[in-house]
Every structure is written in C-alpha cells, then in structure tokens.
C-alpha cells in the first residue's frame, strides 16, 4: 500500500431537486483513498454512500440530481472539471464500478462474451479476437468454471454469484486504478459473499489497485478493508484505519454502530439499537446532524457543526465530544 493519494474528495455537495424540496444527499463529504488501499464507506441506508460513488463517476441522474460543489481529485486531476467525453474515457478504464444487484446489472439480451468484449474493445482499442482472449483470461482469473462456455451464455443462465464474478471481470478487465464497489455482496447468499470478497481482495492486491467499498456491514469492513470512513446523513463523521476505528471508535454514532453488532458471547435478551431515525434529508437538523439521536448531545451540538478533529494517527472525527479510548 503506497502513501500516495489516489482519490481525494473534498467538501463534496450533491443535491437532488425534487418537488418536496432540495434533498442534500451529500453535504460536505471528505474522503481519501490511497494507492492500493481498500477503503470501506460505511453507513445506514440513505446516508449518501451510493450517491458519493455515482458523483465520483459523474453518473448522478440529472435531473433531478446535481453536484453542487467540492472537488474530486483523481490522480491529481479534478473530475468535476472534465468534459462528458473525458469522463466517458475514464469510466470503465481508470475507474470502474460494480453494483449491488448482479442479476439486473447485465443486459439480458446480450451474451456475457459480447458485453465483456464491448468494454475491452472500447477502452483498449483492440480487435474482437484479442478482446475475446482477454475476456477469457479475466473469466479465468475470477475463477469462473468453464470460461469458454460462459462467454456464450446469457445473464439469465448464470447464478447471482457467477454474475458478480462476471461484473468483477468486466470491471477489472481494463486495469482500473480505482474500483468503486457498491454493496457488491449484499444481494448474494451468505456462503457466496465471503468468496466474492476474498476474490475481489486477491485480484485488487495483485493489481495494486484501490477500492472504495460501500457497505453497511461492519463485518465486511473488518474482514476486507484497510481504512474506514463512516457516513451519517450526507457527511463523513469519522475516518481512520480499520484497527484504530474498531479499537477506539471516537464518534458516538460509530460506537453505536459497533454496539449494534450482536455478540453471541453476551447473551443479553435484546439486540442493541441506536434510538431515533435517520433525519429527513430535506430538513436536516442544525448543528451536528447526529445530535437528536446522541446521548452526549449538548446545546453546542444543536447549534454548531463540528469540525474534523484528529484523535490519533490518521484518525479523524467530526464531534464536539469525541469518545476517549
């Protein structure tokens, strides 16, 4: 893992203009992904994880969505300043993405081979024959049984796990330096989840590529990632290495999330929860967005938005009263 920054998201704002009002889906997100690093982006549904990934790729559905501010620096270039054509040449080649639902993420009327070859030909400017050979190699690398036969199959003839392998094969076929993985195992059977995660990790390490792994499962983060950023209601509330965050979570929200993981050794009767619900994105609470649900909240929390505070090496938290140890 290098120390060089690959992706730097600074103060990103992405809003959706709806009839109900302006939804500030992302309201000041800061992220850093180093070369070769796997960064987990964690948070509850609707906190803006997926929109962050789509903003990076320039794929926020517009209308109603729009990136309203901030900078997205990728290998030193500001992606928000790119033309649509320049973004197209980056998508799929330098930054690739895989999605939550492998079953619906491939076009049902084209063969697997055609869909793989199309992308390889587009970015690598090679002949169909050589694109086919590369597609076969990729399928082999994602440990697909009988790759030759799979090329001729249609998506509906494969299982969810197999399709996610195909998605990974397509995503990595053009050697991206960054992979955005949006809940890649959520739709899969538990038995397959670990296989896919391990496969992804292996292939990424081999290529020295970086991953932004979006998930709501802390277990996945602990197993797969090097660093974590925790999102809450459109902002990143805490980030740091996996070790330091799991050992000493500093934000009350992060701590709450950890406590929600059931511990079989402590046979308490009830599962732990964080009281309250995710705030209304049209009218978010003032000050710290988490304060209505926070047991430590004071008057300060409801008025002033907390700035990032360093609580350890590379460990930053946005809280007026960070937890100790």
């Amino acid at each position, binding site marked *: 893992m290098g120390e060089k920054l690959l992706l730097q998201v600074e103060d990103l704002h992405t809003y959706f203009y709806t009839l109900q009002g302006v939804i500030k889906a992302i309201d000041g997100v800061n992220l850093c992904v180093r070369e070769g690093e796997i960064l987990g982006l964690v948070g509850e549904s609707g906190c803006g994880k997926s929109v962050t990934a789509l903003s990076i790729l320039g794929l926020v559905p517009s209308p109603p969505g729009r990136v309203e501010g901030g900078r997205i620096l990728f290998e030193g270039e500001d992606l928000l300043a790119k033309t649509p054509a320049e973004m197209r040449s980056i998508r799929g080649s330098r930054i*690739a993405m895989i999605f939550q639902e492998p079953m619906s*993420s491939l076009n049902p*009327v084209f063969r697997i081979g055609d869909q793989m070859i199309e*992308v390889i030909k587009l970015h690598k400017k090679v002949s169909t024959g050589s694109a086919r050979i590369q597609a076969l190699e990729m399928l082999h690398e994602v440990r697909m049984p009988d790759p030759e036969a799979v090329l001729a199959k*249609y998506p509906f003839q494969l299982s969810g796990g197999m399709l996610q392998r195909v998605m990974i094969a397509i995503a990595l076929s053009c050697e991206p330096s960054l992979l955005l993985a949006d809940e890649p195992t959520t739709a899969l059977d538990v038995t397959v989840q670990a296989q896919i995660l391990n496969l992804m990790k292996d292939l990424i390490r081999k290529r020295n590529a970086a991953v932004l792994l979006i998930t709501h499962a802390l277990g996945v983060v602990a197993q797969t990632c090097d660093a974590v950023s925790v999102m809450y209601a459109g902002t990143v509330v805490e980030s740091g290495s996996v070790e330091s965050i799991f050992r000493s979570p500093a934000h009350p929200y992060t701590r709450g999330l950890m406590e929600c993981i059931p511990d079989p050794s402590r046979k308490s009767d009830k599962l732990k929860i964080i009281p309250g619900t995710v705030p209304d994105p049209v009218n978010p609470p003032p000050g710290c967005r988490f304060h209505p649900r926070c047991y430590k909240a004071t008057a300060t929390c409801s008025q002033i938005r907390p700035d990032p505070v360093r609580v350890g090496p590379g460990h930053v938290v946005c809280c007026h009263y960070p937890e100790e140890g």
Partner: protein
Amino acid sequence: MNMVTFVSRRLVAMVPVLLGVTILTFLLSHVIPGDPARLLVGQKASDEVVKRMREELGLNDPLHIQYWNYLKQLLRGDLGTSIRNRRPVVQDLAERFPASFELTFVSLFICVIIAIPLGILTAVRRNHVVDHVTRVLALLGVSTPVFWWGLLLLLIFYFRLGWLPGPGRIDLAVPPPAGRTGLYILDSLLSRDWRALGSSLRHLVLPAFCLSYVYLAIMTRMIRSSMLDVLNLDYIRTARANGLPERAIIFRHALRNALVPTVTIVGLSFGELIGGAILTETIFAWPGLGSYMVDSVLFLDFPAIMGCTILVCLIYMTANLVVDIAYGFLDPRIRWG
C-alpha cells in the same frame, strides 16, 4: 432450444386455434337467422326448389356431419360460392387480399420508420419541445376519427389542391401492372412499369397516411415509455459506468429491450388493419377486404362472410407467429424459456 424447435412448436399450437375458428364460423352460419338455401335460389323460387337446394347443400344432415363436410371442403381450399355475385369466394378474396395487404403493409411501414426514431427522440429529450409537440400530435391522432381525417385529406389534397389522386388503387387511365401477386407496387417494379408504379404510389399516399396516423401515435408513445423504462434500469447504469458512449447505450443496449412491446403492437395492428380498415377503404374506394366484408354482411352473403373470417383469423395467427419469432430474436429469455 433452437429457433427451428421454437417455430415448429408455435406452428403446432396454431392447429387447435384454427380448428376452433372453423367451429365458430360454422356455428355462426347456423345460428344467424335466414336460410342459405332460400338466399341462394332467391325469394321468388318455389318451396320445391328450396327443398331441392337444401338437399343439395346437405342442410338436412345432422350438424356434425355438416361440419365434417364443411371441414373437408375447407381443406380442399374451397370456401363456397358467393350468394351475391355467384363467384367462388376464394377468387374474390384473392383479388381483395393484395389490395388490403399493400395498404396495411405500407401504412405500418410508415408507422415503424417514423415511430421508432420519434419515440427514441422524445424519450431522450423528455419534456423538451419535440416531446410536447409529439404529445399533442399523438393525442390528435388517437382522438380523431379516421373518417374525419380521410374526408379532410381528400378535400384538401384532391379537391382543392389537386396534388394527389382521389379514390381507387390506380388511375383509371393507367392499366394495372401485369403480375401475379396483385400487389401493384411489387408487380409494377417487377415488370418495370414505371407509369403504374407512380400512379399506384400516389394513390397510396392518402389512405396510407390516414390509416397509419392512429397507430403512429400509439407506437410513438409506446416506444417512448418503454425506452424511458429501460433507460432507468440497472444494466443501463452499468453500461454508463463502463464508459460506453450514449449512442451505443441508446441504440444497442436500450432499444433492443424496448422493442419487445412495440413488436407486439405492430403484429396486432397488422391483423387488425388487414380486415378492419373498413372506414378508410370505404372513403378511398379501396377494393380491399374491409369493404368486401361490409358488402357481404349487408347482403347476408354467408359463404363470403365465413371466408373472410377464416382468412382474417389466419392472418392474425400468422402475424402473431411472426411476432413470437421476433420475440425470440430480440430476447433470448423467450427463446430459451
């Protein structure tokens, strides 16, 4: 499952439907009041003659024997003799069918080549000017009766401006092109009869436009909405995330998926139009099946009515077969399912 099995399965499935149709048309001719024998020999004939005719037609046999005879006759390609003009119904249909086929084919062709690009355009430029204009035109097409358009078009382009010819398939002064198909465009092309080609094309313009407008409106709106549906699906997002150009996304990835509902409409419209373009055929004096059917009904010409019904059913089923095959080509899930 390969294409041959797929098609032969569909063909086999047509047999019971056709049998059902023959039973229905047969019963129809026996339920409707009126004595075919009396109709054949005329009102003034004596009872003796009617009785002999009944015997001759086998009308005194039990119903199932009559049906069996009817079926045998049908299998020989004999649809009986028209009461109205004493000609074999098959011969009448052979003359009328090409006229209807030509009109329907050209109308639907116009529909498809305009509706697909327009549907895509209005989907991609949703809520822009093109979309709003198309929406108004489509509403106009769906809500205005065909005969009104027909009369208006004749009034403007034939009577007032004189740009286009009036009723009929071809100018009276121009001899119909020589050929076997009865399709004037095809025949005149094959025999290089440019005069007949020009005349029959000019005669086609108004009725074809009139007939296609309603379907054009429906199809454009349908392609628009299925394109919009498809463009929101996950695999389109994947295609974008893979950096595919918008052109490839719309024309390759989205259009093929959006075409399935459109193909259904085209197929059904074909069946509907070929025997159902009654108003258009009447207004433009087009010698097709629709006007023939109306005349037959007015004369209680049972053999002709039954012949038409069976022919239209056959066309419907063939159109559906073609639609099924097209599905198989467009969507592998249907071919293999």
